[in-house]
């Protein structure tokens, strides 16, 4: 496995209106493997969105380095190449759709890259089918639900044929149905080989990733596989993060004297363990 993203001693400062600086990210380092699904989880103000914008050079580090596929985000010459390789999907589904017709919006990225019209059409069809929205290609965004709009935004990212997509809290404004739709799409894209970085504050979403980074006050507090993270519910609670229901239940059952393995993440595993031990 090779690292697609390398974040090395990243520091980022915000300058407030009154001139004082606030340290949003304080010296963090991590790597994201090619083709992996990484979740970055933390409270508001933990620096997770700032981190996301540092990955594709929408923000630049105060010190330290961010390498995307070996390219340094601080190098102006590789700016557009980095943005082509790392696409981004934002929180508010309404505020990132440029065009009043779905397929035209999906084409926006490739058009900016100067791709041949025939190739754009192919990519738009592919991207819309990847998010299962082909039948809506001629619709206006305001006729769609929140989850559907967010899937269009994802299609817009896919059409740029990126190696990696960074999702900056894509489900925060959606209802449970929309959240489910978006998460399914993310998982499917990951299976097709796209490196996915999901910024979220929902623990049950992080549980679906294969690598979880917990951020708090601009620092990495935990870093590992979901099972490793969930094994320490006290630590998570201290950081005011939820524990997935199955993990919580396993914890409560252990307190009641039931012997369960340490690495339970989901309900299915819990059911399997309990009904086997019976």
């Amino acid at each position, binding site marked *: 496995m090779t690292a697609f993203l390398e974040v090395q001693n990243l520091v980022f400062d915000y300058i407030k209106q009154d001139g004082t600086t606030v340290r949003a990210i304080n010296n963090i380092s991590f790597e994201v493997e090619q083709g992996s699904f990484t979740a970055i989880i933390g409270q508001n103000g933990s620096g997770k969105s700032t981190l996301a*914008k540092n990955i*594709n050079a*929408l923000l630049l580090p105060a010190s330290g380095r961010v390498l995307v596929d070996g390219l340094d985000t601080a190098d102006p010459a590789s700016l*557009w190449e980095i*943005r*082509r390789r790392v*696409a*981004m999907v*934002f929180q*508010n589904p*309404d*505020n*990132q*759709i*440029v*065009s*009043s*017709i779905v*397929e*035209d919006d999906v*084409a*926006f*990225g*490739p*058009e*900016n*890259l*100067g*791709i*041949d*019209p025939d190739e*754009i*059409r192919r990519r*738009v069809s592919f991207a819309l089918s990847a998010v299962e929205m082909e039948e809506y290609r*001629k*619709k*206006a*965004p*305001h006729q769609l639900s929140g989850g559907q709009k967010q899937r269009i*935004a994802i299609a*817009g*990212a896919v059409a*740029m044929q990126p190696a990696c997509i960074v999702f900056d809290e894509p489900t925060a404004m959606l209802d449970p149905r929309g959240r489910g739709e978006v998460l399914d799409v993310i998982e499917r894209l990951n299976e097709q080989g796209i490196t996915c970085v999901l910024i979220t504050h929902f623990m049950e979403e992080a549980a679906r990733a294969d690598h979880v980074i917990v951020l708090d006050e601009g620092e990495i507090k935990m870093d590992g596989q979901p099972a490793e993270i969930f094994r320490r519910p006290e630590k998570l609670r201290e950081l005011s993060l939820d524990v997935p229901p199955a993990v919580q239940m396993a914890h409560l059952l252990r307190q009641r004297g039931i012997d369960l393995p340490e690495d339970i993440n989901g309900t299915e595993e819990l059911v399997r363990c309990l009904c086997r031990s019976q």
Partner: protein
Amino acid sequence: MIRDITLGQYYQTESVIHRLDPRFKIISTLLYIVALFFIDDFIGFAIAWLGLETVICLSKVPRRFILKGLRPVFLIIAFTLIINIFMTQGQVLVEIWRFHITKEGLQMAAFMGIRLVLLIIGSSLLTLTTRPISLTDGIESLLSPFKRFGLPAHELAMMMTIALRFIPTLLEETDKIMKAQQARGADFESGSLLRRAKALVPILVPLFISAFRIAQDLAMAMEARCYGSGLPRTRMHEIRFTRTDAGAAVVFVIFLAVIVLERLLW
């Protein structure tokens, strides 16, 4: 209520009119409007109406949908009619108190009414049959000769695209904010003009904040999608002047000629 607005809306369907080059459609719409003001008798209007009718049939846009677009401008039409009926001097037909209805007034009102209706239907056909993006692409292409004089044709077109995209969003937002302030006891319907103007502050401030937030988010999202990369932009839908367009142009020129001849000969 907000969902009812069709003025400036696009109607999705497959038709010859939809497929025409947007540049041709924009220019012909402009010429058609000029022609409407050139016409000076009912036969001329009949010809214009016939032309319009042909386009409506070919466009496959339901009449109901077109007429709905007329509703918001109904007041303007009614106002024009009244002004023309009562304010035109001439042979008096009816006299009510100090107002006269004259023969010339009636004729003038009928002229203006027909002209307005034909104008509005004609121009809404342009937006109904041309996707917003093609429309702005068309405008960009038509304006591009002026680029050498420093006219930012592409930027203007982009602004229009974004405006068209966010009109429904902002209308929805306005509706939401109005209701929220009403729930806090705000009253937009009564009181003096000054009071009513002041009552708009609690709507306008949140609305502006919203608009700025959208602008900020959108700018970031566009940048992330490589807008402004300096690479030559391409288009998924290229505009091409095809043989159909040439045919349509010939028909349209004949149509214009008939209108001119009618004015000169009758």
